[in-house]
């Protein structure tokens, strides 16, 4: 797809502006579950979106191809498919490919042709390039150079499903009730300046990192320019894309732990830093000094996911909502508590995390609410007579 921005941001506004509903669910023991509950949960927040975008990311999705890159590609033309497949054959060994299974009766507007590929890159990549960077190069190449094709999912053992419609319609279209994963994120979109094209829905991702996002990053201009120095091409012109690349830069390239990366994106106020013990103070001051251009300023809640981890984060003055719920080894993140209660009526604990403090769920490490600086509640639903 030559100029995604043209499709995604047809009026060439400063950027695409949208907001929405978020939901995430993770089984920290790695038990896989189907998409039915996730779909019900995100559908319960129907009024937060406007039918111009819905999407899901699923981890632990393709265990049978766990070591292969799973590319999900949208084609706007047959020619795009031919060209792209010719390109893929020179860059990867394709183990298996097929048209994405869909429910043709589903209520969605003008879906593109969608195809998925399971591919090995290890024999093709140059010596001096990491496999990940090589895969990213190929994604960027298709998305910026080839006509009529767009890679919207490029990780291993995970996949993104998204399109134009309410999220429950998108789930129906892609038959998500048939898939299993141990970590799901979901998004219902309310864009204001794009007629909605399938690639523009959330989640956004690169490799196995995905982001679903609610809010608007007022610092977008500088966040984007900063990332462009590191070779990221912000073709989609959205805040969300910028968040995905920022995480990729901080965690994958600069090797920072996720908790530290969160302190870059939602940096503490200078006054708060000044009150910390010396060592911590120095760390946080240095992070702000070095990565000031990556401070995400403006209202946001994001759920960032990659293999084995789900992270919820809000801006430092918490202008967008996030509620967390846990029950045993299940972790839920949601824009609204009701969506959690809908799918997990006996959720053990729900709480609202403090702005700027990440909530991190990890495989093999169930979240301990007590250890989180947050306000909590174990109110249960008391039915009459109980």
């Amino acid at each position, binding site marked *: 797809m030559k100029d995604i921005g043209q499709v995604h941001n047809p009026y060439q506004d400063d950027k695409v502006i949208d907001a929405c509903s978020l939901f995430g669910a993770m089984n920290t023991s790695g038990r896989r579950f189907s998409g039915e509950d996730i779909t019900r949960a995100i559908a319960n927040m129907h009024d937060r979106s406007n039918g111009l975008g819905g999407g899901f990311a699923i981890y632990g999705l393709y265990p049978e191809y766990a070591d292969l890159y799973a590319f999900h590609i949208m084609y706007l033309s047959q020619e795009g498919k031919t060209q792209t497949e010719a390109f893929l054959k020179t860059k990867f060994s394709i183990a298996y490919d097929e048209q994405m299974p869909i429910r043709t009766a589903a209520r969605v507007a003008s879906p593109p042709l969608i195809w998925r590929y399971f591919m090995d890159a290890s024999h093709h990549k140059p010596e001096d390039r990491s496999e990940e960077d090589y895969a990213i190069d190929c994604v960027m190449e298709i998305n910026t150079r080839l006509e009529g094709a767009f890679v919207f999912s490029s990780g291993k053992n995970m996949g993104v499903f998204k399109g134009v419609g309410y999220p429950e319609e998108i789930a129906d279209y892609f038959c998500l009730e048939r898939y299993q994963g141990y970590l799901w994120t979901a998004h219902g979109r309310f864009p204001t300046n794009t007629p909605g094209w399938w690639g523009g829905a959330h989640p956004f991702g690169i490799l196995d990192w995905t982001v679903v996002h609610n809010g608007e990053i007022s610092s977008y201009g500088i966040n984007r320019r900063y990332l462009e120095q590191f070779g990221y091409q912000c073709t989609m012109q959205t805040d969300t894309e910028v968040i995905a690349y920022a995480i990729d830069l901080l965690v994958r390239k600069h090797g920072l732990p996720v908790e530290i990366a969160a302190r870059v994106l939602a940096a503490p106020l200078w006054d708060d830093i000044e009150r910390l013990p010396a060592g911590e103070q120095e760390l946080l001051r240095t992070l702000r000094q070095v990565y000031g251009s990556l401070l995400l300023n403006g209202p946001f809640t994001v759920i960032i996911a990659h293999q084995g981890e789900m992270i919820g984060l809000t801006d430092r003055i918490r202008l967008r909502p996030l509620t967390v719920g846990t029950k045993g080894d299940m972790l839920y993140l949601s824009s609204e508590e009701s969506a959690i*209660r*809908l799918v997990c009526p006996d959720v053990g604990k729900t709480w*609202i995390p403090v*702005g700027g403090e990440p909530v991190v769920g990890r495989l093999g490490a169930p979240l301990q609410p007590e250890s989180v600086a947050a*306000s*909590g509640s174990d109110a249960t639903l008391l*039915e009459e007579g109980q």
Partner: protein
Amino acid sequence: MKIRVETNDHTARIDATGLRYRELNTVLKEIVSDGIRKVAVHGVCGQRYLGTGLGRPAEIELFGTPGNDLGAFMDGPRIIVHGNAQDGCGNTMNSGEIIIHGHAGDIAGLSARGGKIFIREDVGYRAGIHMKEYQDKKPVVVVGGTAQDFLGEYMAGGILILLGLNLNDGEYHKAKFIGTGMHGGVIYLKGNVNEYQLGKEVGIAPLEDSDRQVLQKFTGEFAAHFGYEAEELLRHEFIKLYPRWLRPYGKLYAY
């Protein structure tokens, strides 16, 4: 969809499972205007604006998790939530009562002009923001637990009570910017705060007798709603936060 409503004299029971907010509110408005004075709504799950536009006194018991803007612009009814409330409960409320057997999300009591909100546990950001008062019309928010940042921001009136019941001995509240921009009303706070947690427009004072009377009245109501001993709640020290100036920004400008 057939909406399940059972009515009996002046009471009704509604099953809200699967209902959109507009359907549920339409039913509520209809039955309350038909003279029903007590409604129990079961299976509430995210429906917004419950209690809005009812326009006459009624007691609405909600089982489940009501959606945002619970009781927005509300004038009169009493809402009891068996569960947690989301964001914006009591938004620009005029009169009535909201009693939450759980926690509440952000901006509880935003711009309230009257009425009372009792929250058994914690509140999110900006609780009581820009509450107002005029003569005998005074909104009251009582929070059993603790609060997040910007509690009582811009407060122009009303009474905000934070009981800190879930704090351990000696534990501090974590909220910062408490009462920032406050220029009216009063906050009574139990549990410790550092001075840097307070907005610069706020002063600290010990309680006077008139304060104790106010506290007694509303913590008493809180205790009655949630089964606490009122004396127990008042046993610990409270501090009173008050606006240092009626006109916090009087010196901000060059003319």
